[in-house]
Each structure stands twice: as structure tokens, then as C-alpha cells.
């Protein structure tokens, strides 16, 4: 087996890893402030990909006017739209459940997942529709010295990494971020200091949702857009979150990247295990470090 093959699979794995990282980052941010696991996170990722697809290929047909939302515009508009949906879900549904056991939040978002998934399954093929809107400037391959790699995939990796680390920097090293952390630490006291915690909660949920939407747009040109794309992914991301622990932002990012890499390499060395390797790693982590690699039990 040549080193090229291994490096290629490692990069492809990293490509999956950045999606894991973005999604588990969103889950961790939401969990930190709301203590809720958003099952609909996968559905929001799927929604992001579908809005991009509809904006590019279907809007003209449906509305009968000549309008097309390109990839670059989608990159901005879609996270905002998905974030807006997040605002609605938080304000009108989740907010009423904070007093109850946290599992109700999980169950609610599971119900939302079924609704979104069912809606798109009605109108779109379950096996997937390709997104044709990949910009001309990102087509082709780049020479990385040791191999050729698709430009678009490299672009997706770089953008995701920038977004992940920007989020980390924002939360850990800015004034606004420190307020957010104060809200995580002690919501009542933070509120007493005159900060609008409910607004913070809403915006945080919207931000997490927007992040999932952005990951969806970035994924659309790579994978075919399907109503089930989010559900399959989110369960893996749950395992990633269990492995990394949701105690730290950086932990969520790094475990996402590392596990994507490991999954990619498993495809080279033992392909049948590629879809389960992360779950088995989760078992190992549970056995030897139950709180997760970066975790502190909450």
C-alpha cells in the first residue's frame, strides 16, 4: 500500500472530520448554555443542503421567475435561514421545556427531526439529488506536492477549520464570549448582573443551528443531497461528542477532526469497519475514561 493512498484517504477523512467538528461544536455550544441535546442538528444540516439545492435548481421552476441563488450567496443566506428556524424553535417550543427533565428537549427535537425528514422525503428522492452549483473557480484539482486533491474539498476543509477556530476564539477570548461563559456557569447570577440571558440562549441556539446549516451548504457539492443525510451523520456525531466530552469547545473540534481522520484511515486498512469504527472507539472510551477525553461530567 503506497503512502499516497494513505495520505489521500487521510485527507478525505479530514474532510469528513471537519463536518463532524462543525456539528459537534454546534451541539457542544448549545448543550453548554441550554443543557439540551439537539437531535434536530442533523436535520438542520440536511435542511442547509436542501435550501442551497432548492435555491440553485428549483426556485426558478417553482416561482416561475428567473431567480437563482448561487453557491456563494447560499453560503451566507442559508446559515441565516436555518438560524432563524432555530430562533423559532427555541422561542416557541424549547423555552417551555427548560423547567422539565432534559430528556424532553431531546424528545422534542427528535419529533422535529421526523417532521423535517418526512417533509423532504415527500418531495425529494431518498437516494439523493446532486447539487450542481459548485462554482467554476473551485472545480478541478490542486497539486499538494505529494498528491492531487479536489479544489472544492480543500476549500471546504479550510473554510470549516476557519469557522471552527473563529468560534473557539470568540467564545474563549472575547468579551462577549466571556459573558456567554458566565451564562453557562451561572445563569441566574449572570442575569442579576443585567445581562439578557434568555436572549443569549436564543442566539446561541440559532448560532448552533446556523453552523449546522453552513455545514450542510458546504457538504452539498460533495455528497448528494438527501433527506436522510443528516440522520445518519448525527448519530456518529453523538458518538463523537461522547468520546470528546462536551466540556470544552476545543475538545469538540479536535475530537471531530481526529475521528474523521481515523474513519478515513480505517477505509484503507479495513473497509468493512469504516462505518462502525467510531462507535467501537466510543466503547473503549466508556470503558477507560467514562467522562470522555476532554470531558468533565456535568
Amino acid at each position, binding site marked *: 500500500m503506497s503512502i499516497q493512498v494513505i495520505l489521500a484517504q487521510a485527507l478525505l477523512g479530514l474532510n469528513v472530520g471537519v463536518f463532524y467538528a462543525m456539528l459537534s461544536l454546534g451541539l457542544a455550544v448549545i*448543550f453548554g448554555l441550554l*443543557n*439540551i*441535546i439537539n437531535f434536530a442538528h442533523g436535520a438542520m444540516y440536511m435542511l442547509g443542503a436542501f435550501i442551497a439545492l432548492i435555491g440553485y435548481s428549483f426556485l426558478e421552476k417553482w416561482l416561475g421567475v428567473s431567480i437563482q441563488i448561487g453557491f456563494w450567496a447560499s453560503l451566507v443566506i442559508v446559515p441565516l435561514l436555518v438560524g432563524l428556524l432555530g430562533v423559532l424553535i427555541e422561542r416557541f*417550543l424549547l423555552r*417551555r*421545556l427548560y423547567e*422539565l*427533565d*432534559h*430528556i*424532553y428537549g*431531546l*424528545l*422534542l427535537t*427528535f*419529533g*422535529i*427531526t*421526523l*417532521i*423535517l*425528514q*418526512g*417533509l423532504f*422525503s*415527500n418531495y425529494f428522492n431518498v437516494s439523493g439529488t446532486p447539487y450542481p452549483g459548485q462554482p467554476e473557480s473551485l472545480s478541478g484539482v490542486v497539486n499538494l506536492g505529494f498528491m492531487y486533491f479536489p479544489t472544492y474539498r480543500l476549500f471546504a476543509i479550510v473554510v470549516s477549520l476557519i469557522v471552527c477556530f473563529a468560534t473557539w476564539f470568540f467564545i474563549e477570548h472575547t468579551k462577549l464570549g466571556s459573558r456567554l461563559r458566565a451564562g453557562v456557569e451561572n445563569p441566574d447570577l449572570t442575569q442579576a448582573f443585567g445581562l439578557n440571558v434568555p436572549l443569549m440562549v436564543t442566539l446561541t441556539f440559532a448560532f448552533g443551528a446556523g453552523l449546522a446549516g453552513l455545514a450542510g451548504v458546504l457538504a452539498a457539492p460533495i455528497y448528494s443531497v438527501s433527506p436522510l443525510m443528516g*440522520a445518519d451523520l448525527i*448519530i*456518529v456525531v*453523538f*458518538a463523537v*461528542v*461522547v468520546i470528546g466530552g462536551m466540556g470544552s469547545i476545543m475538545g469538540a473540534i479536535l475530537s471531530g477532526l481526529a475521528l474523521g481522520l481515523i474513519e478515513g484511515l480505517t477505509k484503507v486498512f479495513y473497509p*468493512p469497519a469504516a*462505518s*462502525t469504527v467510531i*462507535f*467501537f472507539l*466510543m*466503547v473503549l472510551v*466508556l*470503558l477507560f475514561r*467514562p467522562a470522555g477525553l476532554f470531558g468533565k*461530567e456535568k
Partner: protein
Amino acid sequence: MTNRILFMLMLIGGLTAPLFAYPVFVMDLLCFALFACAFNLLLGYAGLLSFGHAAFFGGAAYITGYVTKEWGFSPLLGILAGTGFTLVLGGIFGFLAIRRQGIYFAMVTLALAQIVYFLALQMPFTGGENGLQGIPRGELFGFIDLNHSLTMYYFVFTIFLIGFGIIYRTIHSPFGEVLQAIRENESRALSLGYDVERFKLLAFVISATLAGLAGATKAIVFQFAALTNAHWQTSGEVILMTLVGGLGTVFGPVVGAITVGALSHELSAFGSWVQVILGTIFVVCVMVFRRGIVGEVLRLVNRKKD
């Protein structure tokens, strides 16, 4: 008192159901009802949300199907083999999952169940996406032919009653009381000297085993072990059934399974809209109807008494 009346109603309903409904359909409902009761033991009484119970329901079906089809096991022995398999599997999953609490517990069980799903998809004997087909119904005790649908029906109803009885006894035993104490306040139960982890693990194993019993029976009824039974959506469905019927009530899961089962059956012509409708029911239940059907009824009955 209320429980006794409800039990008589269930018994009469179960015995006479084949007179006015298609037996195979009622058997399907019974399997799901047992599945939901087993799930309710865990969530309703121990406060543990497992998102991976499809692994037991679906996994047992494959094992039962395989041993009856390939090794010529009798149906009863086959069901026992499938159930025994989930006993072991439940022990392993439970051991791993109780290391994490609350929301993590749900995620861990979901991820573990996904391993079973992928194994069911990839292993050579399971038939992949087509599932394991052509499972024989065989003969009970060597002389009662289960291919006759009424005989099969009363066999399934007996299994359901046995499973239901075990769950009823578990809930109303000292063990069940401790489980509820753990659900209400885990640290207090711990400080009272109860080995909380052992109670949780045992509850998990009982629940998993009975979920397996339901799945194993379903495989014999339909002569088919389906991949969808091991899918996470089935785990979600059993949660919905329990929630609709009434979490933490003895008869709630039965009512919920019948309601959701009948609804999915009636709506099956609408394709993917069923999912949208089930999702909406999920949201409505969580938002405004958390007691479920039986829970609400019991509340009304108790209010009248006061």
C-alpha cells in the same frame, strides 16, 4: 382497583380481538405493545431514556429467525434463543451505558444500537437490506401447528401476557420501588445505601430482554426479520408509543402501541407523510400532553375520587 378493571378489559379485548380484527395485525400490535411495556419499565420507572432499544427488538428477531430457519429449532426454542441473546446484549450495553448519565445515556445507547444496525446490514447471514426471510413458524411442542393464524394468535397473546406479567411484578416489587426512588432522586437512593448502578443495570437487562422477547415473537409471526426493526427510527417509535399512552403507567404503553400502530396502519397510504404526522404527534405530546392517554384518564379518575 383501577388496574384490575383495566387488566380485565385488556384480557377480554385480547381474547376476543381476532373476532373483529385481522389476527396478524393484532399480533403486530401485541409485539409492539410488549416492546413498549419493556421500554416503559426503563424510562417510566427507572428514568433512563434508551435510544437504542431497536437493537434488542431487531437483534432478537435475527437470532430467532436464524436458529429456526438454519438449525431447525422449534419456534419456542427459537424465541428463547433470541431472547437469551438480548439478555447478554442488554448486559453489555447496560454495563457500558450506565457509566454515563442523563442525556449522555441516551446518546450512548443510540450509538451502541447503531453498531447492531450496521452488523445486521453487513453480516453474511442477515440478508442485508432485504432482511432475513422465510422463517418457518413451525409447530409448538411438536404438535400444535402455528401456521394456523388463530393458533398463532393465542400463542402470541400468551407470550404477551407472560411478558406483561413479568413487568407488572417487577414494577410492584421492592426492586421496582427502589427503581422509582432512583428515578426521583438518585443521590438520595445512593445515600440510603442502595447500589444504584446495580439496580440500573438490572432494570436495563430486564427491559432489553423483554424487548428481545417481543422482537423474537414478531419474527415468528411475520416469518421475517426486517432491517427496519433494528433502525433508530424503531427506537423512536417505541418512545412515541410509550409517550402517547402514558409514561410510567402500567397500561399506557399498551394503549400507546395500539394507538400509534393503528394510526400508522390507517395512514400507510400517505407514504412519507406518516413520518411528518408521527413527528407532529411527538412534538404535541412533549409540549402539552406529557401524561399521555392513560395518565390523563387516571388523573381524571383520581380527581373524581377526591
